[in-house]
Every structure is written in structure tokens, then in C-alpha cells.
């Protein structure tokens, strides 16, 4: 019963592994660069603004490609 509840709970956030991993990596990279002072916060904001929609587009395009192959 618990496993049947936990599994869909994880699925709430992670469905496409690549999109989830890409999001976490992008945020972690920007956060690391910002918190170490290597990146001004304004540039960090800009990077997030470009990276996240790009990740979404990449994930959709890959899913479409995968579906076509099948």
C-alpha cells in the first residue's frame, strides 16, 4: 500500500528523467556559480531564463523523436 502511494508521489515531479535531471543540474550549476561569487546574480537570472525553456524544448523534441522511431 505504501509503495503504491510513494511511487506515484515521486512521479508527481519526475516523469521524464532527462527533463528532471537537466533542471536539477542547470539550477545546481547556476547556484554554485552564483554562491561562489563567480557569476553576478543578474547573469544567473538570465541563465535560468534561457536554460529552463531550452530544457523543456529539448525534452519535448526528444520525446517526439522517440515516438516517431516506435
Amino acid at each position, binding site marked *: 500500500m505504501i509503495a503504491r502511494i510513494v511511487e506515484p508521489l515521486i512521479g508527481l515531479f519526475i516523469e521524464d528523467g532527462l527533463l*528532471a535531471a537537466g533542471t536539477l543540474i542547470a539550477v545546481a550549476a547556476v547556484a554554485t556559480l*552564483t554562491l561562489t561569487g563567480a557569476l553576478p546574480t543578474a547573469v544567473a537570472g538570465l541563465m535560468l531564463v534561457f536554460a529552463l525553456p531550452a530544457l523543456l*524544448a529539448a525534452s519535448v523534441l526528444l520525446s517526439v523523436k522517440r515516438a516517431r522511431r516506435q
Partner: protein
Amino acid sequence: MSNVATIVSVAGASFAASFVEAVEALTVVLAVGFMRGWRSSLAGAGAALAALALMVAALGPLIGLVPLRALQALVGILLLLFGLRWLRKAILRAIGIIALHDEAEAFARERRGLAEAERKRGRGLDWVAWATSFKAVLLEGMEVVFIVIAVGAGGLLWLASAGALAACVLVAAIGAAARGPLSLVPENALKFGVGVMLSAFGLFWTGESLGVAWPGGDAAILAFAAMFLAVALALVALLRERRTEAA
């Protein structure tokens, strides 16, 4: 952002997202009720609501103890994961790569599964019915709680809660009146809009947690929503066109 724009974006996002979740929970509760009796179905749903209330009461006050930056980061990242996932799925549905979520089909599938279990049922309390309703309401309810906390994290928890409550009450009222699945709800359009809003909130909070001073303050959320919407619509238009050409 003006007060009106804040109210519309927070309450609207919370209402629309909660509406979708409530429809999904209601579909299961109705299917269980029709197949196995209303007592077990409603008891399972009631127990799930009580469990949710307990969780919120126990964990809610802890939110105040978490440092603001950490809370913004956590909420921002979870919202991004949640929002981008919804948006990706809505785009893929819009271009026909995955099937549209059909509440009537979900209702029929749930009934078929329960009919199968009915044959194996012994005497006594109908635990299958109870557990099916409980699980559906608990899971969808947790999504609603998460959305309310995330969307209302900027000090507007009451507004997000009101939006969610209004959605749940409306769905329950429609369900009680219709006694059937809410298959007329344009779920993909709602998910599309909610995915856009949650992604926009997620981007905003993640940036805030890193100390980004967004131009225009809270109004940046609307700009981010417009950006995600434009990207999503462009993807739908481009990929639909390609599919048409391929056909």
C-alpha cells in the same frame, strides 16, 4: 505587481491546478461509489481528507521555521519539476504524441478494475473500495496541498488556499449534481495553463533564492508565464505542422 494582478495570478493558478486534481480524485470516488457502494467510497475519501488535514496541521507550522532563502529554493525547484512536467505532457498531448486524458475512460477503467476485485471480495468491510478512494483522494490532495504551499509561498497562503478550496467545493458540487465523470472539463487546456503558471512561479522563486533582483519585482512572474506560454505554443505549432506534413 498590482494587488489585482497578484490576486489573479496566485488564486487563479491555485484554483486551476486544484480543479484538475479534484476532478481526477472525484472520478475515482464516483467510480468506486457506483461499483462498490457509496459508504466505503465516501469513508475512504473522508479518511484521506482527515489524513491530509492532520499532515497540514502537523507540518504547516514548521514552514515558518525554515529560513526564507532555503524555502524559496526548495519551493522553486519543486515547482519547476512539477510545472515543466505538466507543460511537457500538455504539449505532447496537444500534438497527439500521447493520448488526451479522458475522464470518461478513466472512470470506465476504474469500474472495470473494481468489478474484477468484486468477484474476489469476501464478507465484511469493503477494503478494496475504501483503499481505492483513500489513495486517490490522498494523492490528488497532496498535489493540491503542494500547489497551495508553493504558489502561496510569498505570504499569500490564504489566497492560494481560498483558490484551492473554491475549486474543490465547485468540483464536489458538480460531481454531486452530475453523478458522473467530469469528462467535459477541458483538462489539457487547464494543464497547459497550470504548467505555464507553475513553471513561471518556479523560475521566479529559484532566482529569488539565489538573490536575483528580477526587473519589475513580482510582475516578472507574468513575463515568465508569457515566455513559457510562447515557447510551448511555438513547439505545438512547429511539431503539429511537421506531423501533418509527415502524414
